[in-house]
């Protein structure tokens, strides 16, 4: 990996961070319809994985999907537009935060059904294989997704047919407002392994670790060696969604503080880059300036954009 690549990852993580901060602001200032589930704290997972992918590889995403979408290469202006329900949004305003898809970059869509896209990713992998391409499909889901039976059904299919799909489980410790240990029996890694799926645990706050593990899994899949499962240990810094402000009943301020102080994926990367003398603080500042400018412009674009024409309401029901 080159210096430029690390800086690129830093820029991507920062884009997500700043994008999400603006989404939060849109919500608190009542400029955004509905809710949104912010990715802040988990940036290293999406970026580490997507940097290991080609543009024509597929991903599927979740209700907490802005990070995956940006990491796969989406532009912030059309994302903001989608979140605001505007016409130039990625889905013409019809999908919103929980359904952003970006077909051109292989993002088959966020999904508001927990584990609802596990079948889709597996099917995309089947298609890639049948079509003789070496594309892979990545399926992002939260650790709450392991409660859904369909995950086991499709892991079995992927293993049986050696499909190039990588299940990326982001364990941010909470299913909404319930700690995952209250909902998850046994050993998480054994679940994919029971199906003969190669599985690894990885520090989801360390983009280098995520990227390395993802690269291994992707390489295996491209070589035709079948599915893999990455268990990324991570943490969401903010609420389950933008409206989840009072969190004391399910987790402590102290826990949050500790993660923010010690386990921030941006700091972990910059600290390492500085220690290795690969980058100086000024470079981060320069990146940040660019990122902030891009995002400010994107937001402006979206705020100024028109709403969809009312006639859109019954278009696209059928292809």
């Amino acid at each position, binding site marked *: 990996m080159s210096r430029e690549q690390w800086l690129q990852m830093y820029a991507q993580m920062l884009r997500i961070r700043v994008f999400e901060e603006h989404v939060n602001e849109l919500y608190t200032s009542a400029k955004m319809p509905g809710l949104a589930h912010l990715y802040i704290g988990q940036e290293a997972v999406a970026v580490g994985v997507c940097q290991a992918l080609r543009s024509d590889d597929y991903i599927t995403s979740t209700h907490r999907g802005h990070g995956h979408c940006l990491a796969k290469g989406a532009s912030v202006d059309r994302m903001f537009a989608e979140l605001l329900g505007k016409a130039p949004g990625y889905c013409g305003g019809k999908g919103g935060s929980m359904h952003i898809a970006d077909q051109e970059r292989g993002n088959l869509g966020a999904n508001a059904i927990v584990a609802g896209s596990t079948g889709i990713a597996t099917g995309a992998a089947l298609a890639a294989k049948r079509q003789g391409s070496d594309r892979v499909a990545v399926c992002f889901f939260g650790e709450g997704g392991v409660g*859904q039976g369909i995950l086991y059904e499709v892991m079995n299919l992927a293993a049986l047919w050696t499909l190039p799909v990588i299940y990326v489980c982001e364990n941010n410790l909470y299913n909404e407002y319930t700690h995952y240990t209250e909902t998850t029996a046994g050993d998480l890694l054994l679940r994919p392994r029971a199906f003969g799926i190669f599985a690894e645990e990885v520090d989801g706050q360390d983009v280098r670790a995520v990227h390395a593990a993802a690269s291994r899994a992707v390489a295996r899949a491209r070589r035709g060696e079948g599915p893999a499962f990455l268990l990324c240990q991570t943490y969401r810094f903010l609420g389950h969604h933008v409206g989840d402000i009072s969190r004391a*009943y399910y987790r402590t301020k102290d826990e949050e503080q500790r993660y923010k102080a010690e386990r921030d994926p941006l700091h972990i990367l910059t600290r390492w880059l500085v220690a290795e003398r690969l980058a100086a603080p000024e470079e981060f500042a320069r990146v940040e300036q660019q990122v902030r400018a891009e995002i400010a412009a994107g937001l402006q674009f979206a705020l100024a954009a028109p709403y969809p024409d009312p006639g859109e*309401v019954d278009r696209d029901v059928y292809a």
Partner: protein
Amino acid sequence: MSEPVIAAAVREITFGQAVREALAEEMRRDPAVFIIGEDVAEAGTPFKVLSGLVEEFGRDRVIDSPISEAGITGLAVGAAMTGMRPVVDIMFGDFITLAMDQIANQAAKVHYMSGGKLKVPMVVRTTLGATRRSAAQHSQSLQAWVSHVPGLKVALPSTPYDAKGLWKTAIRDDNPVVIFEDKLMYQLKGPVPEGEYTIPFGTADVKREGRDITIVATSSMVQVALQAADLLAPLGISAEVVDPRTTAPLDARTLVESARKTSRVIVMDEGYQRYGITAELAAVIAEGAFHYLDAPVTRLGAMDVPVPFSPVLEDLTVPTPDRVVEAAKTLCGRR
């Protein structure tokens, strides 16, 4: 069954509080009742409707579950067959899709398939309704599916009063009952007696009497119908608003009687219109009041599109008071 006359001084509480009160009273009365669902305990559900129950009844009776709609519904069927009275909380109505085998093939059929020997006294609690900007997978009103399945009962409370009374009936019913609550109605206030009362299933309620037109509406649409009735009154159109309260069993008689009286009918429901609740209501009324109707029954369901996210689009998909007024004016020859 006891439906007391509501005293003038009856206290007002919200729809959400009425649901919680019914559950709390029934859980106090019967130790076999328990609640299971995602984030139902300390969180009290994302809508906070169940807040406080875990503190009173403990974690053995208000059980936070994994995100396993099929699993917890199946578990509830088994517990119901063996002496418990589970309430399964399915956070959004859209998620009953995941539990349809357990609801329609297991819960609904066990009593019949066993020749009447086994029974499944459980309640599936879920939500309906759009215009919360929650998009296509969190906004559906799928009551038509479960209303279609013999063996299930389906309740759709439209006021705090009905919520408490229907809930208590549901919990005491020996059959699987699915209750849909409109997410946007939780803050709606209304009079609710503190005492004990139940509302029998299969009894429609005339929410407003009228002479010129009947508006049959379910759940969320009852409030829309009542607003429309307010708008119609100054135009000289006296609208009767009838709420079936349960779609299964359906109180066809009350619907038909009102239709015979007014000769003009609008039927409303927030589910997709096509093959939805309004089709059955229209068919039942057309059959029962055939010779009395001046015009075909007008159906107002949700538009037959996945619910769009963008507010400017979403608001077009559900019936509004204005659209009811337009339909009523047309039916009454006022245009």
